[in-house]
């Protein structure tokens, strides 16, 4: 299975579909598990890690998931391909640049991934477009049960699933949503959001998780507490309280832009469009921010019926022809495609060779210009 078989396409969770997708890009549930009768990875020898890897790889590859699965030996994969997997949110940066025998089992539709020998023996992940946390947890629960039929997890009735780091103890669950909050940023209210998240005991991270910044107005919001709460309650709190409030704040900020600050909004969108259609060199950081404004304009048109001069110009643009139904109209799916395919590793993998940053910036600009010229 070659990565280039799917490197040209967007994956399911970037489809732009799903509930509340104008603010919630994707939802994710992750479970951390360790095998009983083995040491945690920090105390394992290379041979012991290899043993754990083989055991879990065999089990995972044998599961009936209703989707083709393939295995990637991360420690044996070229660095560029590892970065590619990180860009697609299939493995973490920690896994890509970790040490020792480790791998990933990935389902073809990329909705399910399992990392073996990341920080824990096993990290299961289910990713879906839009806000679909109950569906995520239902799927990951089923897979967790299937694995547990074949192997025994390190578990104590008192502390729950035993993890290498005490911060993941208990349920071992990380529930998160990827938010797009350009209006809160434009109206100077992002700090409020960050403080509110902190007060609720939630972690806010950038596009690619721990240690990354909030590029492109994307924010990953996740729970921090994993012990003393049950999985369903964490999901329920997100679904019923946290998410509706944030969506409302962002929608209100967007409405405010329309009613009080159309000039600012249109300026951001116009500038983004002008640069994306004409610039010769665009860095990946810049692309993320410019595409963020395009995404905002399109979503406001589709979900709030907004029709400012700049938004109208945007909506009359050609797309990259990939979606016959939309008949050459620029769509969220196109924006998502551009967002993904112009990330550094995607760019180089699809081009066929590694490029220095100037050439990457030129190629990126070229791909975007072509997509927007329709």
């Amino acid at each position: 299975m070659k990565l280039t078989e799917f490197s040209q396409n967007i994956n399911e969770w970037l489809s732009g579909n799903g509930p509340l997708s104008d603010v919630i890009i994707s939802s994710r549930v992750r479970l951390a598990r360790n095998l009983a009768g083995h040491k945690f990875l920090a105390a394992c020898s290379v041979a012991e890690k290899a043993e754990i890897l083989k055991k879990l790889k065999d089990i995972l590859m044998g599961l009936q998931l209703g989707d083709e699965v393939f295995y990637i030996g991360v420690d044996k994969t070229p660095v560029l391909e590892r970065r590619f997997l990180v860009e697609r949110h299939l493995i973490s940066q920690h896994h890509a640049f970790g040490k020792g025998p480790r791998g990933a089992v990935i389902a073809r539709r990329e909705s399910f991934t399992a990392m073996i020998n990341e920080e824990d023996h096993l990290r299961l992940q289910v990713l879906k477009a839009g806000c679909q946390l109950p569906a995520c947890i239902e799927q990951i629960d089923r897979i967790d049960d299937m694995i547990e039929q074949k192997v025994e997890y390190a578990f104590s009735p008192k502390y729950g699933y035993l993890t290498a780091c005490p911060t993941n103890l208990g349920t071992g669950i990380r529930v998160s949503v990827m938010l797009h909050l350009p209006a809160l940023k434009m109206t100077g209210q992002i700090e409020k959001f960050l403080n509110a998240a902190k007060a609720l005991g939630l972690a806010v991270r950038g596009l690619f998780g721990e240690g990354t910044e909030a590029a492109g107005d994307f924010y990953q919001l996740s729970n921090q507490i994993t012990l003393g709460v049950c999985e369903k309650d964490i999901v329920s709190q997100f679904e019923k309280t946290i998410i509706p409030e944030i969506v409302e704040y962002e929608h209100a900020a967007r409405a405010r832009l329309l009613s009080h600050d159309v000039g600012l909004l249109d300026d951001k969108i116009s500038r983004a469009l002008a640069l994306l259609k004409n610039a010769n060199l665009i860095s990946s950081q810049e692309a993320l921010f410019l595409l963020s404004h395009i995404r905002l304009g399109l979503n406001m048109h589709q979900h709030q019926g907004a029709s400012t001069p700049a938004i109208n110009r945007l909506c009359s643009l050609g797309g990259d022809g990939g979606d016959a139904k939309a008949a050459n109209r620029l769509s969220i799916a196109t924006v998502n495609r551009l967002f993904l395919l112009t990330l550094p590793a995607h760019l180089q993998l699809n081009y066929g060779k590694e490029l220095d940053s100037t050439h990457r910036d030129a190629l990126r600009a070229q791909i975007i210009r072509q997509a927007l010229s329709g």
Partner: protein
Amino acid sequence: MQCEICQSKEATIHLTEIADGVRTEMHLCEQCAQEQGVGVKSYIPLNELLSNLLAAGPKDEGPAGPDENQLTCPRCGFTLEKFNEKAVLGCPYDYEVFEKELLPLIKKAHDGATTHCGKAPARMPKDSKQQMEIDRLNRQLDEAVRKEDYELAAKLRDKLAGNK
């Protein structure tokens, strides 16, 4: 904006009070806010948390016991110092060996919680100590059979049968 109390640190907490129609605002840094009794949850990195706890020093009550920092897990060889260095534990048994020392950390990380109340594996889980012992004996048994030391293998097999 500077903290109104200490006038030196950056104000990150902004309080607004409306009483009898009168609105007052206060801008404080995290430290002064805590001193004023304003509850603020903040995320403390795990390493820092553990360092603070370990640096707290030996307890005053009772005769001096063995130095807690030197406690070693018999399964994986980890000490608290090693945990502090790596920010992760060495094996599931560490949760029993270092239970006393880990408890304050766990409480802090999980908002006071110390007991699991979520999903449990379908099978009845043996406790981690017993499980690791069984696994160790199994490995020794395989090795004994491979070496054709059937006397040892029989002893191990009986021991395993006794453990179940």
